[in-house]
């Protein structure tokens, strides 16, 4: 219906505007499966920004099957997903897990160094919604289940390096979903 309307509308002397401003979220198309045994050495060649430590979601969440909420501890209870504390990382990496490949070893060394120096690692932020948007993670997890992260973030478990799959800062992206699921579209649900 809306599509049709926009089409007809465009004909009505707004085609130009429409084509420019019209945006339909490109559904979460999946990245090519990164084979974990092939270690991409130069992270710059991968999609997405380069992180201070080449943390591999595809290994942690993918191969090792660690649930998202193990690290992003507050996603189920709070608006904020929570960034794992350095301690959480060290829980495994202090002694036990030292990395399978030399490349991994290097990265884990970085982690230990940072922890011992008590210098928190400044991860490059990938998903951010505008200041005037309030996105309660907890409610969405509650409604869609703990596996729902991929709905917005894409299948991180297959990403050697995380990149933006959906423009989560685009209102259309939110609204499409809210429309499909017949949940509130009231402005003050997110904007206050």
């Amino acid at each position, binding site marked *: 219906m809306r599509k049709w309307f926009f089409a007809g509308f465009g004909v009505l002397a707004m085609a130009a505007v429409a084509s420019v401003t019209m945006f339909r979220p490109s559904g979460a198309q999946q990245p090519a499966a990164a084979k974990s045994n092939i270690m991409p050495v130069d992270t710059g060649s991968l999609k997405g920004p380069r992180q201070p430590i080449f943390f591999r979601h595809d290994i942690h969440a993918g191969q090792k099957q660690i649930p998202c909420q193990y690290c992003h501890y507050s996603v189920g*209870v709070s608006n904020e997903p*929570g960034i794992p504390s350095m301690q959480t990382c060290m829980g495994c990496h202090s002694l036990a897990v030292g990395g399978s490949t030399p490349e991994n070893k290097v990265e884990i060394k970085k982690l230990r160094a940072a922890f011992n120096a*008590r210098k*928190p690692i400044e991860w490059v932020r990938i998903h951010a919604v505008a200041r005037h948007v309030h996105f309660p993670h907890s409610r969405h997890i509650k409604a869609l289940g703990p596996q729902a992260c991929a709905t917005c973030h894409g299948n991180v478990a297959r990403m050697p390096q995380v990149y933006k799959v959906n423009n989560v800062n685009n209102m259309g992206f939110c609204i499409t979903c809210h429309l499909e699921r017949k949940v*509130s579209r009231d402005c003050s649900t997110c904007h*206050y």
Partner: protein
Amino acid sequence: MTDQAEASGVDRRQFLKVIGTAGAGAAILSGCSTERISTLVPYMVQSEDQVPGIPTWYASTCSECNNGCGVYVKTREGRPIKLEGNPDHPVNAGTLCSRGQAGLQALYNPDRLAGPMAKNAAGKWDAIKWDDAIARFAAKVGATNGELAVINGYSASTFSTMLTKWTAALNGFVTNFQPFSREPERLANQKTWGRDDLPVYDFAAAKYIVSFGADFLETWGSVVEQQRGFATSHGFNDGAMSRAVFVGPRLSLTAANADEWVNVPAGSETLVALAMAHVVAAKTGSAVASALTAYAPEQVAKDTGLTADQITKLANAFAAASPSLAVAGGVGAQHRGAIDLCHAVNLLNEAAGNVGKTVMFGAAPSASEGYGSIQPLFDRMSQGQFQVVLVHDANPLFTLPKSGKFTESFRKVAFKVSTATVLDETAAECDLILPNLHGLERWDDLMPRKGVLGMLQPVVEPVRGGMHTGDVLLQASQKIGGAVASFNAKSYEAYLKAEWEKSFKSSDFATDMREALGRGGVYTASTTVDQPKLVATTALAVTTPTFDGPGDYVLMPYPSMQYHDGRGANKPWLLENPDPITKITWQSWVEIHPDTAQKLDVREGEIVELTSPHGKARAQVYVYAGVRPDTFAMPIGLGHTEYGRYAQGRGVNPLDLVGAADGQGFLPYVGTKVSVARTGDYHQVARVDGTPRQLGRGIIQTMPVANAIKKMTPEESYKAIGRGEAESNPELEQKAIAGFYEAQLDATKFGDYANEHPKWGMAVDLSRCTGCSACVTACYAENNIPTVGEEQVFRRREMSWMRIERYWEGGTNGEPLQARFSPVMCQHCDNAPCEPVCPVYASYHTADGLNGQVYNRCVGTRYCSNNCPFKVRYFNWLKYNESAWPEPLNLQLNPDVITRVRGVMEKCTFCVQRIRSAQNTARLEDRDLKDGEIVTACAQSCPSGAIKFGNVKDPNAKVVQWKQNHRGYVMLEETNVRPSVTYLAKVLNIETAAFTGAEER
């Protein structure tokens, strides 16, 4: 929309510097939802009580004044963002005054000192290291051999005790100094009962309250507690209500809330009190009668300007209502006859048999010393008796009158040390500054009265490089050794906990302390009230107090509600929150009666020069009918020469005119007469009120108590009184709009509106509201409302989403001058006129009955504000969001509410962020919302509990009961906008015949 992101939120780096790194490893995720944050910084170690996005609450105690109210500190990601009252606390029971809430701006004050500083030979400040600083301090103190003076402004607490012991160990001399320390009362209590302490007054129990100059709703005594009590007895709940009378030369906020203002010249309150006591004693046959023979009403009538039977009637009513309560004191009544006044009032209470009923001794701690002891101290300084002086948590050089040459005496001391957190007048004179930690950063406690131990615990890493003065002392002690070597606790925290352990006497101290900290302190049931024994009284001979100077006008300085003794003057919230009576912001002024103003030919804003034998001052005129023609009133608190960017050079300090001569053990604030001269200069008064009269529009409706008891509606009451025809719609109009709204609603069952939703509503009981403006500050704190500053207030551009409207009644042709107060916030109308006019749906109606405002959609046509009959929409004319919060003030911002950019309209949202988060929580727990689960910031803070909020569809919600009250009415009903806010008419405890309010309806 990108500019939304520019909004000055929390600058992460700054924040990291403040919180992140040091020890505890708090971290910053707050404002996670801002695009500006380009990197995410994890905790080093996850602190178990901090979950990002979820506020953590700590109990603590307010250290803004010495009443020791308990507070809950709301923190997000390790930074306090709001102070609220601690409901368990016996003093303030969950509410907090403006000054208390503004404590946050003391914590984050941009002018806080970054670390210890020493004055070099050139008189400039050098930043130094703490070790160095403490070493210097220890060296000097160690060498004093007893010539050490300590001025301690921190009230009764473990720390004060330690400081006293410490000083004693050094044979030093300590003064626990409070500027407004109510000495006359204590001296009078000596006279009356031979005891030095102060009673606790039970306003809640009193049926008849007479205040002789005591501003018990403003600055006199434990105001939050007293206001709660006053609201309990004087607020109307379908029964009898207490009657309040104020005797004094100025219509203060307290007087404005009384049912009657007995306007007598400064000094003659004493006579009124005595005459009343005379009558009452005669009635009750009290022992004090003998002392009062000389004070029959007839004898005092002419000196007070009242008629004898006025006084008699007052006295009879007072005697008839038992228990009643008479209070006296306060700066406004601190003239040379103050002791007599308080003594007289004590006798009055005795005669009426209130002692032990509403006047209860035994609870209050021996109050701190004041002028009577600080003045001799300074005399000794001037005689060079001290080598070192340590000033802690006090600013005597501002709070004492200049004429006393205190600064000069102070300079006589060789080495002067201050622990001020901001460079105030006293600190500026010092040689060494050891900035203390703020109350929210340190371990400490307060004992406002017996049985109450209020605890302070650090809830945030030090915002600036301060150090707990306790630690400074302990470390210094070790360096000094000798007598003070015994002060060897490894830290003040350790010392304090050890002291607590002693006082706890519990088996499992650790657990008990954790519980106590959770409750914010230890509150043992108030000790049994002890009945003081009346000192045998001989016949009294009261002399009328004298005033210095040849001037024609008595100068009456009074403590400002916002600035108290001046400590509030560096907090934008307090500066922009208008004075409840004059509605002036950011300024000080001199109140002149209209007749006098006419006589002097001065207008509002004109600058006059006041001259007293002790000094001169130039102040701008505010013409005020609530002050006697023979009296000028001026607020204390402004006129700082130091004290940071907000306070410095702002306003004038009336103490410059006050004489320092004492002789009786207290400072006679009201002891000077001034003469006035026009200067021809003009400075616009930054008032926020437009026309202070209701012009018959029924904005704030009132009714005499008789009608209220008859369960009349305001409508009926006005009719019964024969006061103006109702403004509401005539029959035909009613018919025309009947069912219109419902019909419309049926036509709007689309989308979200089709489903079931709660409907949020509010009720305000005007018979409880005193206009104290605590709710305004709460609103500023909760909703990140920017302060705009004096220049913008000149253009009436203040952003107070919640404002207290103040209207005057009477005052002309013999009618008594009365004030009406009402909080006015967005009324969230069902037929909101602001909504349909917005071209972009920025203003619209939510499914749960809120009048939504989508800031990021607003283009700023401002039509909504034009069309709002209540004018409660506020526009960001300039980039206030960039000017209002200089770092680190921005850390106080509530991350759940965005800061609005310039060019958008904003307004009260019924704290939608609180509603939504409560809904989220409920959803996570698969349950429905409970009534009272959502409390708006204003309702939460109100000391008299005048505001109720809730779901009006829930039949047994408290707010519904209020809305169904017969006193309920909505503002501007005739506009048929159907507000969601119901007001309960104010009830005046006066005879129906005496009912004024011609201008209400």
